[in-house]
């Protein structure tokens, strides 16, 4: 396995960001569907969205763990990033935070790495 190069980290960050946006968006649609179903009774089922979010969250988690491991982040931070994929809007917040952390930490890396 390749070590954590800046390049591999930027790839992992890209994958994580894409999934954060997808999962965040699907999650908001899912929540809207739950409300539409249970409060306004305008749709019958949100099962497909639940299933879609389930699988997308899995991919999100895989990307998030991959990035966290490459960055050697602490367990609380890993938990925060992972759980963010299940709480509406939090994945967008997490994505901003992760960007900040990665840039701050990679910025310290020697030039050329």
């Amino acid at each position, binding site marked *: *396995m*390749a*070590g*954590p*190069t*800046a*390049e591999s*980290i930027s790839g992992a960050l890209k994958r994580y960001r894409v999934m954060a946006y997808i999962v965040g968006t699907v999650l908001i649609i899912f929540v809207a569907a739950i409300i539409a179903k249970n409060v306004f009774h305008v749709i019958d089922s949100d*099962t497909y969205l*639940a*299933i879609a979010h*389930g*699988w997308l969250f*899995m991919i999100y*988690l*895989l990307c998030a*763990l991959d990035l966290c*491991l490459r960055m*050697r*982040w*602490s*367990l609380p931070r890993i938990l925060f990033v992972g759980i963010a994929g299940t709480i509406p809007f939090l994945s967008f917040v997490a994505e901003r935070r992760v960007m900040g952390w990665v840039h701050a*930490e*990679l910025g*310290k*890396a*020697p030039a050329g*790495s």
Partner: protein
Amino acid sequence: MLRTRKWIALTSLAALIIVGFGALSWWQWGRAQRDMITHQPTAPLNQVVTGTEPLAATNYGKRVRVTGTFDAAHQVLVRRDESTFVIVTPMLRPAEPAVAVARGTVNSLQDPAITHIPAGQVTLAGTLQPFDGDPGGESDLPPGQVKHLTAAAVGVMPLVGGWIAQAPAQEGLTETGVAYGPEAGTGLRAQNVTYAIQWILFAGFVVYFWWRILKDDLNAESDGAGVELPTGSGECRSTGSASQDSSKVTESRLDPPRKKVY
């Protein structure tokens, strides 16, 4: 020493998480089955009904199980429409009134399941249904067929005052549609099935990332000077990746060690 302890802790944690995820998967698998007919609680018939009086409305749709032998001679076909027939076969029970059992539905009078009546003692489960009211009048149907399922149509005495819609139906037969009780034929809930699968996959993630952390650790060791490998297996030393140091983020980037948990 510290390293060994760390790995014992990490491995135990991973094992615990895997067991936990396995339990969650099992729980979701149970939830996926909650609508299935086989999952509804059943009571022995004689705990619900003992006499032959018409079924009390409070017992409509109750899940029961019953043991007895089928009385093939008194089987009747209840005609639902031109080509749909419910096969009703009385079940004889020693010392207790017989009970009419709808074994299932067929779409053709040539269906072999009609005459394929299980022999000997049989135990089955189903939901209790009330008999139809007797409309009286002459039937224009061939012998052995009836329009309405009544106690008289079954023609066995004494007979429990309601019938059992066998569910799940006998093999090869379609479950009889019923007016009362848990809906027949409801399958697994897709949402919970996928969650059950996902918990297993999450457990797989734990193994994968445990392995990655281990590899990272071994690589870091072989990069560092003279730290003893916990396993002592030389093959685990990084083969090649250590030589790619130029492309690798140097340890200085990763140091001073952040709040590392692993």
